[in-house]
């Protein structure tokens, strides 16, 4: 495989031809924030949190492949502002109540907001009316916390080979749907990879909440991307 050399924030980075910016950066120890990217999945490019400026244009680092001499801007003030705006939108579009959420301290959306130092979103809250599906004996689906990253859709298809989740409708009305009357009517099992794949508290195992004491949770002491993230293992 041929080597490709490019720069991220002025630092020279090399990777293999065909590798994405996100994975080449990670292999060189540079963290690019992301939400919809997940290990062993085909990149999706839906959340846009990994957006970087590539040769002057905004691109999603999880899908854009590297090329020789590419100039990537990752941690500039402009890109940080851009990502903060995306995170703010994700927060106001749903109903994210961290104070009682079982995912708090383990949540990647919350952890990214901590990393970007967000104290309050810059947009008005929409407070949408969203359902909670408690039908399954071992797993629940709280649409209030869903950010439509598509991880569950893809993990269920690509890794579990079950196709339990799908997106329906478009734009502002886009939402997650299960392939059945309710979660209990699907082939979802608690042992499926998908159960652990949700970055927020939308898809959660029942009866295991609040297991890690406050202060010892992954993102309590150090930000996401500071060595505590699941690493992208395949090229």
């Amino acid at each position, binding site marked *: 495989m041929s080597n490709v050399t490019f720069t991220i924030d002025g630092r020279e980075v090399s990777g293999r031809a065909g590798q994405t910016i996100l994975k080449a950066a990670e292999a060189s120890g540079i963290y690019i924030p992301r939400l919809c990217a997940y290990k062993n999945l085909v990149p999706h490019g839906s959340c846009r949190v990994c957006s970087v400026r590539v040769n002057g244009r905004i691109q999603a680092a999880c899908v854009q492949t590297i090329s020789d001499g590419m100039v990537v801007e990752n941690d500039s003030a402009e890109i940080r502002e851009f990502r903060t705006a995306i995170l703010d939108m994700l*927060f106001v579009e749903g*109903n*994210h*109540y*961290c*104070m*009682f*959420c079982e995912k*708090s*301290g383990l949540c990647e959306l*919350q952890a990214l*907001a*901590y990393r970007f*130092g967000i*104290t*309050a*979103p810059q947009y*008005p*809250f929409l*407070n*949408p*009316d*969203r359902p909670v599906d408690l039908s399954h004996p071992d797993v629940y689906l709280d649409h209030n916390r869903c950010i439509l990253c598509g991880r569950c859709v893809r993990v269920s298809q690509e890794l579990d080979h079950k196709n339990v989740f799908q997106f329906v409708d478009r734009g502002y009305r886009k939402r997650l749907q299960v392939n059945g009357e309710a979660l209990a009517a699907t082939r979802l099992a608690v042992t499926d990879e998908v159960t652990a794949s949700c970055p927020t508290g939308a898809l959660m195992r029942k009866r295991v909440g609040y297991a890690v004491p*406050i202060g010892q949770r992954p993102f*309590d*002491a*150090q*930000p996401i991307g500071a060595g505590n993230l699941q690493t992208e293992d395949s090229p």
Partner: protein
Amino acid sequence: MSTPSKPRVATTSLCGCFGCHMSILDIDERLFALADLVEFARSPINDYKEFDGRCAVGIIEGGCCNEENVHVLEDFRKHCNILVSMGECAINGGIPAMRNNLPLRECLEEAYLKSPGIWNPAGILPNDIEIPLLLHRVYPCHEVVKIDCFIPGCPPPADAIWDTVVALLTGKPVTLAYERLKYD
């Protein structure tokens, strides 16, 4: 008594649970330093109900769920140089905002007519003139007036409150350390 040269701080709890004010008390022995540093104006801490002058800093706990909350918040904005939203309810409405996607009438009927154990044969919903009218939804403070500074947390860690107040009173930029920026 305090000297008039001390900066004055006002606090209030709107649609909150007073947990954030408990967190203020959690600064422990630094309360003595705080008492040296500031003079409390209108606050539940000294039980003063009205403003009697301008304040350097106003600290708001809770969001706006009724018309009285809005009046108090506007009064704070009018009297305070710097207004601080303290805690999740002030910042995003918090637990009370969970009613925001339900019609107000449905919430009142659930609370006063339908809940188990309710004895209300006349089917009356509270509507006394003394009771502040509920807003159709709960608003975070920054959607009602201009807010200058936010301290997230439910409640915010005492250290986060202390760091913010000290920075504001000494004219330094407010930056919360990573481990003090929390939403829970």
